[in-house]
Every structure is written in structure tokens, then in C-alpha cells.
């Protein structure tokens, strides 16, 4: 706790889009309640701060840290470790930190191919074939940049986390609930949830929250929304042949997407008791396929042209297999020669 009687709050973004930060800022006036109870000591999205300031804080002195984003490079990994050490409560905040999210889909691609696409893709003009390197020697001195790691990792694959809050991004109402609960617990007026548990979400599936009518499902052809005739607004989307990820996805979002006529894409991650999101969803989809002959099964499954994208859109990095073989066997592209002296500059990842 700070000298002014406020708790100390930090929020960080690693490999993320910043949407989680926006979702917190979306608290609108309630953000003032946050400022009332918390000293914001580190939050790069909204205020200037230096990593060195965080490093100088006593261990465990930040009462609450919301960590969004996956661990994609050496800087992300170092900040994860730093904030773990400095924080009493570390929350893996949002889909990236809890299960990898969209950036985790790069775990299908080798780092070489990834850099080729980004630096020499169709929209790039790069005649000198420039690639980022983690260590460059210039006349003025050595320059360092964080090095890309071969796989994106979730926060809990790098450090221990106290709580997981799913969502891409977490719904603002849920954030307000969680901040309220954690503040009350810090005040001693409520008990903290069990360590390691999921906060700010339900324990069942999106289907349980969805008010569409559910009956027996017999899918003879999966289709995307624009390929199908107008849908019945009151009937289950999966029943109407739309691949909807509700059956495996944790509730807590209010089933906003299916109720608005768009299929659930699974951003709230696996429901309670689900080890591997994709495996659970795949089981559910296989069960509604109305065919018993291999050829007919194949034809219906062809309606899901990108199975990994469908089943692991948000959860590939956090899944049992964590990614594809190309990424797993790729070498760090920016490894510097072993002869490089190893200064204490690991933030920039060039100490190999």
C-alpha cells in the first residue's frame, strides 16, 4: 500500500493489441473509483513510466497487476518475470495472456516464414531484405532490440499467475466486478477467490447464456453466414448449420454475438472442466454431423475449411499441442553470435 493509503495498481501489455487496456478505460466514470482506491504506478497504455522504475520497487509492493498480452519476445518474458516478482496479485488479463488469442495463431508458422511475410509480404517494399536483429553494432555503440521467440506463450507458461480473466477483451462490466471484489478482499471485507481460479466469467458455456432455442441438431452442410438463407432469429445457430463455438466457450460475456446473429468465436476461452478448447469443440461439431459414411462425413467436414482457425482461434498457444510443428522446430532468427559479450541487457534479448 502506498503512503497515501491507496493500493498500488499496475497494468501491462505484452504481445497484445491494447484492446484490454481500452476495455478497462471503458469503465468511464468508474475509472475514478479505481483512481480513488489505487495509485497507478505503472500502466504504459495510459501514462509514461519506465521499466527501471518498476525494477526499483520493492518485491511484492504492487498490490494488483493486470497483465494483458502473450509472451512473444524476450522483452515480454522479462516484464512477465519482473511484474510477477513485484506484484502481490498478478492477473492474466484477457485472452492473449490466458490462452494466446489471435497472436497465438502465429504458432502455426515458423519465425522465418513469419518475418518473411511481415518484412517482404505483398504489401512490402524491402529491396535490401532488411530483417530485425536483436543486436547491431553502430559507430556510436551497440544497439539492442528484443528477440522474437519461436512460440508465443501464455503468461502462465512463463510465470505463476494468481487469477485468470478471459475475454477478448474482458467485458467492462466484468472488469468492474473483479476490481470491486479484489478491492474488497484487499480491504479485508471479502475473501480472495481460490488462487489460480478464473475470475470475471461464468462456469458454464455460452450456450447456457444464449436465449436461442435449442433442439436436436442435424447438420448436413456447414455454411458461413453469407452462404446461408436468412436465419431464424430464435433458433440455435449451430442447429442452422452455422459453426458456432458456444458449446465449448465459457460464459460471462452475455452471449452477445449469438444473440446478435453472429456465431460465437470462442473469445472467452474453455469452459470449466475443458482441458483443450479445440478438442471439446471438435467433439461437439462431430456429434452434430448428420452422416455415417466416410465420404459423406468428408463432404460435410469440407464445410470447415480451416479447422485450426475454427477450433483454436483464441486458444492455440494455451492448447495441449501449443502450436504447429513449423513454429516448434524453428530457431530464433535473431540469435547473435556466441562471442557477443553478455552485458546485463536481457531486456533487449541480445545476451546469447
Amino acid at each position, binding site marked *: 500500500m502506498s503512503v497515501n493509503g491507496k493500493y498500488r495498481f499496475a497494468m501491462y501489455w505484452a504481445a497484445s493489441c491494447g484492446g484490454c487496456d481500452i476495455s478497462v478505460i471503458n469503465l468511464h466514470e468508474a475509472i475514478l473509483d479505481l483512481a480513488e482506491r489505487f495509485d497507478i504506478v505503472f500502466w504504459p497504455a495510459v501514462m509514461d513510466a*519506465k*521499466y*527501471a522504475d*518498476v*525494477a*526499483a520497487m*520493492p*518485491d511484492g509492493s504492487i498490490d494488483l497487476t493486470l497483465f494483458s498480452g502473450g509472451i512473444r519476445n*524476450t522483452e515480454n518474458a*522479462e516484464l512477465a*518475470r*519482473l511484474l510477477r516478482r513485484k506484484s502481490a496479485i498478478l492477473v492474466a488479463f484477457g485472452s492473449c495472456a490466458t490462452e494466446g488469442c489471435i497472436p497465438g495463431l502465429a504458432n*502455426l508458422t515458423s519465425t522465418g516464414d513469419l518475418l518473411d511475410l511481415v518484412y517482404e509480404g505483398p504489401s512490402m517494399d524491402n529491396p535490401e531484405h532488411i530483417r530485425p536483429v536483436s543486436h547491431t553494432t553502430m559507430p556510436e555503440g551497440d544497439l539492442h532490440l528484443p528477440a522474437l*521467440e*519461436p*512460440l508465443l*506463450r501464455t503468461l502462465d507458461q512463463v510465470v505463476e499467475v494468481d487469477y485468470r480473466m478471459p475475454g477478448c477483451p474482458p467485458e467492462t462490466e466484468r472488469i468492474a466486478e473483479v476490481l470491486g471484489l479484489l478491492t474488497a478482499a484487499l480491504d479485508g471485507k471479502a475473501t480472495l477467490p481460490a488462487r489460480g481460479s478464473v475470475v470475471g466469467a461464468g462456469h458454464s458455456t455460452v450456450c447456457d447464456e444464449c436465449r436461442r432455442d435449442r433442439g436436436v441438431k442435424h447438420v448436413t452442410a456447414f455454411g458461413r453466414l453469407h452462404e446461408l438463407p436468412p436465419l431464424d432469429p430464435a433458433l440455435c445457430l449451430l442447429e442452422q448449420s452455422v459453426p458456432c463455438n458456444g458449446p465449448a466457450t465459457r460464459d460471462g460475456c452475455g452471449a452477445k454475438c449469438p444473440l446478435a446473429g453472429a456465431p460465437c468465436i470462442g473469445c472467452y476461452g474453455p469452459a470449466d472442466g475443458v*482441458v*483443450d478448447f*479445440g*478438442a*471439446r469443440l*471438435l*467433439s461437439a*461439431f*462431430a*456429434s452434430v*454431423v448428420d*452422416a*455415417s459414411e*466416410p465420404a459423406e*462425413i*468428408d463432404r460435410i*467436414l469440407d464445410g*470447415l475449411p480451416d*479447422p*485450426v482457425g475454427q*477450433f*483454436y482461434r483464441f486458444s492455440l498457444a494455451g*492448447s*495441449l*499441442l*501449443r*502450436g*504447429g*510443428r513449423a*513454429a*516448434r522446430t*524453428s*530457431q530464433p532468427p535473431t540469435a547473435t553470435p556466441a562471442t557477443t559479450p*553478455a*552485458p*546485463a*541487457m*536481457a*531486456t*533487449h*534479448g541480445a*545476451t*546469447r
Partner: protein
Amino acid sequence: MNEDVKMAPYEPVVLAFTCNWCSYRAADLAGTARIKYPPNVRLVRLMCSGRIDPTFVLKAFASGADGVMMTGCWPADCHYRVQNVKALRRFELLRRVLEQLGIEPERFQRFYASAAEGQQLAAEFSRMIEVVRPLGPLSWGRLPDVAPDLEALGQDDAQADLVALEAVG
């Protein structure tokens, strides 16, 4: 570790899921009839092939299996009427996922065996081992090298961090 153990040639490990009513009985028959098949196959008996959660298969690969085989009753012979057909649909969908992840299709196969087909099941086990062997170890359990220098940094104290981070500003 013993040098001899380290130098042992690669032997693939294949996990085979069997159903209580047909394919496990077939494996049992192979045993009582003294039909030989490679010891590389590890059997897991379930009540029905419909019980095979795709999670089991993914966990097997993630835990070091080089191949996984789903076995069960022939279509229309299922003790639980149609569950083997559901298993077939899950197999077809999971096969597509594994292929997209870069796992060779030879590593994930299925086979029907009635309780009388011990000979056929043993032959299929032998065949699969010989198909998987040349592919080499899958080694999915081992993660690629993720910046080991940073693992060491995790042990550092706050002072070292401060030195490291001052350079960043």
C-alpha cells in the same frame, strides 16, 4: 544415464485405444493365440471407441507418443449402437486438425477389429509401427529453445534488473 541406454536405437511408441467389446477382445485373442506384435504398442482399454475424447489423443502426442491408433468395432457392430460412428466423425475432424498442425497423417490412424480378428489387429499394429518408425520421434513434449539466457535472469535480484533496465530508460 547409462551409455547403453543412450545409444539404444529409436523405438517408436504408439498408443492404441481399444474398445472393451471388440478390439480389446481381438488383442486378447492375439495374446491367447500367441500371435506376436511389437511391444511398441501400448493399449488403453475403454468401454467404447465413442469414449475416445480428442483430448486423449492430443494429450498422448503432447506427452511423447509417436503415434496414436483408434480401434473399435466394425460399423453396425457397436455394443452401444452408433457410438463408433461418432468416433469415426471425431477421427476425421481431428485428423484434419493434426494435419494442419504439421503432424504426419501416418501418426494417427484407425482400425476396425471384431473380437475374432486378433490376427488382423496384430498385423495392423506391426504395420503401423513400421510406418511410424521412419518418421522418427515426434518429440512434441519438448519445447524449442526459448531464450535460455532469460531463464537465468529470472534468478536475478531487483538490483540486477535495475542495471539491466536503466539502459532502456
